[in-house]
């Protein structure tokens, strides 16, 4: 992923860049009665590893989890901002924000900084008003749509075609599409992140999966390659 502000300039001295790429990958998948979101736990900068134990998942309510990767400074600040907005909403309207409301609000928060964006790739996992799984994916300035599955972050280009094939049953012949169960989704996520860790230097160390169901948010962890 190219950094939005150029490093080179005339005199050979690089201009100060307000952005830095800290790497990481997130994947969101929805089913009939669940939604899950997974991220790796590596935080990098260039060829350095800052930490092997930083998940990129933030639980916003007991029915919504946000995955956020890109520039860690903006990810953290954005999440503080969202947590504050969630609280304010709760005090004003005496209820928690629904997943669809959080998605719309995130879009407006991101677009507010249209001319100095949050360098974050966001994916929300939650449940819709009927209790079905919902995934919302965003660009850095707030464009969003609801999808069945989405990969974001440094290994997104490696993973999205793989998900299209395995969950969307694209480019396959003679196969009957089946509904995705929670167990199959978790197994698929483990395989998919293992594949990403092989080829993307920014992805690895560990995997965290958060699963949203009618009973709340469950969590699973899994080790990944550390090289």
């Amino acid at each position, binding site marked *: 992923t190219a950094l939005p502000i150029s490093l080179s300039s005339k005199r050979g001295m690089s201009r100060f860049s307000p952005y830095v790429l800290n790497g990481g990958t997130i994947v969101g998948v929805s089913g009939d009665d669940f939604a899950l979101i997974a991220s790796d736990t590596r935080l990098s900068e260039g060829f350095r590893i800052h930490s092997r134990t930083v998940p990129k998942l933030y639980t916003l309510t007991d029915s919504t989890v946000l995955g956020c990767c890109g520039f860690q400074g903006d990810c953290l600040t954005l999440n503080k901002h969202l947590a504050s907005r969630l609280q304010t*909403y709760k005090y004003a*309207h005496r*209820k928690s924000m*629904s997943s669809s*409301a959080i998605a*719309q609000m995130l879009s407006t928060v991101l677009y507010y900084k249209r001319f100095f964006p949050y360098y974050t790739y966001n994916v929300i996992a939650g449940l819709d008003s009927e209790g079905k799984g919902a995934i919302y994916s965003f660009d850095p300035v707030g464009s969003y749509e609801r999808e069945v599955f989405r990969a974001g972050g440094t290994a997104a280009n490696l993973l999205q075609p793989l998900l299209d094939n395995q969950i969307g049953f694209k480019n396959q012949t003679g196969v009957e599409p089946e509904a995705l169960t929670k167990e199959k989704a978790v197994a698929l996520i483990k395989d998919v992140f293992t594949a990403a860790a092989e080829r993307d230097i920014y992805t690895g160390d560990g995997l965290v999966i958060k699963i949203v169901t009618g009973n709340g948010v469950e969590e699973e962890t899994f080790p990944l390659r550390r090289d």
Partner: protein
Amino acid sequence: AFGNFDSSIMFMGRSEYDRDVNVYSPEGRIYQVEYAIEAIKLGSTAIGIQTKEGVVLAVEKRMTSLLMESIGLEKIVEIDSHIGCALSGLIADSKAMIDKARVEAQNHWFTYNETMPVESVAQAIGNLAMQFGEKGAKGSMSRPFGVALLFAGIDENGPQLFHVDPSGTFTQYSAKAIGSGSEGAQSTLEEGYDQNTSLEDACKAALNILKQVMEEKLTSGNIEMATLEPEKKYHFWSKDELEDLIKKL
């Protein structure tokens, strides 16, 4: 600044504390706000009744001249497709409040992609009603609003009715009457209200009460009515629909 001290009239403990809008009396009252509430008792009667099937709002139009074009007299307005509002008092004051309610509802939809809860709309208007005086918000009124509103709407908590007055207080009611006929109307509502009434019976009850308190004879031309139902949302009744209902009274 003190007003004229009038000791010969014993009316609501009137004293030199009733002129300024930012002065408490020794008993702890702000007279200007109370007088604003009195102003509403001069306004045309408005009634709201909430049932499990929906909410009804009915107002008397009080046309002071046969030459008046009734369409201009908007005393029941739509705030959003799921919220309506009836007003009584100084109608001009209500324009700013209605606009604020509409803008708040749209901002909520824009930001959260969902309908704004009815109580939150009432809260927003209650907050606006408090912004008066020299040190009020920029561009705010120099005096309290002289209008009371009945917000009727449907949200995930079902049909609800809220009353907002010039003090900024908002209260939820099952049935409420405001304006000149409110005293008689409110006691009739208290006697007759049953939470299992159908919306149609509530509409008839509202019209019957208006009939009692209105000076002129009730016709489809001198009243306004609107209902809010979960599926049908805000519906402003046409003259024909009112005619049909009046026949059933």
